């Protein structure tokens, strides 16, 4: 039986879908069977980030409504056989979801995959609630910026009150990813430090991702940045995927690396 992880953020545009794509692929690269599911009904995007937009035939609403089987709707990744993808429907809206249908789908996916990763829509409304309802764990993606952190705290509050696991008296595991850290700004005191963010949100950190222009380039091409071994964001995603697969990997301090004096000196000799 696999584990269900919801990727949430509260605020939109912080890198939730990018994180879902990269972690899904990273987990697959660790040899685990993984499926990533786009729960953002009406705003399908995970297909683009994964470069699979031309392969979508059936979507998750059709599966829930019995118009297609899970097997028919799953799309295998071109880069790793262990990764599968289930698309959101683009024509409908999130009101088509209901708890019973979601539970049935999640249960079926759990039976065939080690990791079931659900990409939540932004906001804290019904689409979000359905994404977290049957999750065993949640990955919370934030940017080091006030509105993202505040919205994430609201999303965590709802997760802690509305998920089925909590209603059953258990706890939903929560892992924080701080995305788009600009080391130079942290050093000059213009960007929140990860310790401050952890203090405020009071959850466990699973990884820090530095700002990396390559992320846009990667999404332009539909090739998740984790495939680029030289990219600093790609390396960060590799570390996080490893941790999610139970590997002990030290937290790299992306808030001091590759900025400052050493880089400037290194630059002279380039």
């Amino acid at each position, binding site marked *: 039986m696999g584990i269900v992880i919801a990727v949430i953020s509260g605020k939109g545009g912080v890198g939730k879908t990018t994180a879902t794509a990269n972690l899904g692929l990273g987990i697959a690269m660790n040899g685990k069977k993984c499926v990533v599911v786009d729960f953002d009904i009406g705003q399908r995007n995970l297909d683009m980030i994964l470069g699979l937009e031309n392969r979508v035939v059936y979507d998750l609403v059709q599966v829930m409504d019995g118009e297609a089987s899970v097997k028919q709707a799953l799309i295998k990744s071109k880069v790793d056989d262990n990764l599968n993808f289930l698309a959101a429907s683009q024509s409908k809206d999130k009101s088509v979801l209901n708890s019973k249908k979601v539970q049935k789908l999640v249960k079926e996916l759990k039976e065939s995959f080690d990791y079931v990763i659900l990409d939540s829509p932004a906001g804290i409304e019904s689409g979000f609630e359905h994404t977290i309802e049957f999750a065993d764990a949640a990955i919370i993606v934030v940017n080091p910026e*006030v509105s993202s952190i505040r919205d994430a*705290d*609201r999303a965590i509050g709802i997760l802690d009150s509305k998920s089925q696991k909590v209603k059953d008296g258990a706890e939903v595991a929560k892992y924080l990813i701080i995305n788009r850290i600009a080391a130079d700004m942290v050093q000059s*005191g213009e960007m929140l*430090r990860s310790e401050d963010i952890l203090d*405020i949100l009071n959850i466990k950190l699973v990884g820090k991702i530095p700002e990396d222009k390559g992320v846009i380039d990667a999404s332009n091409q539909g090739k998740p940045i984790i495939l680029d071994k030289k990219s600093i964001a790609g390396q960060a995603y590799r570390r996080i995927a490893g941790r999610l697969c139970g590997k002990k990997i030290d937290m790299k301090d992306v808030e001091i690396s590759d900025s400052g004096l050493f880089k400037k000196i290194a630059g002279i000799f380039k």
Partner: protein
Amino acid sequence: MLFDWFNKKKSASVARDRLTIAIMSDRDSTNDLPFMNDMKAEIVDVVKKYVGVRAVNIRKEIEGEVEALAIDVELDRRGVN
């Protein structure tokens, strides 16, 4: 001018302080009670007559049939205001 420059608080710590307060109040469900802010202010006024006060926190606690207001008064170490 120079004095201002040295005393300028870095924006990250401003962000931290503002967020801490905003999130505390987001989480505090007792804010929903309409009289809460007035009551807090009155409690501060009374306690302040005797000792310095930093903050007053009020929580609604429910245990079985009993509903209670738990009032925490955080004192200011610097003493009487």
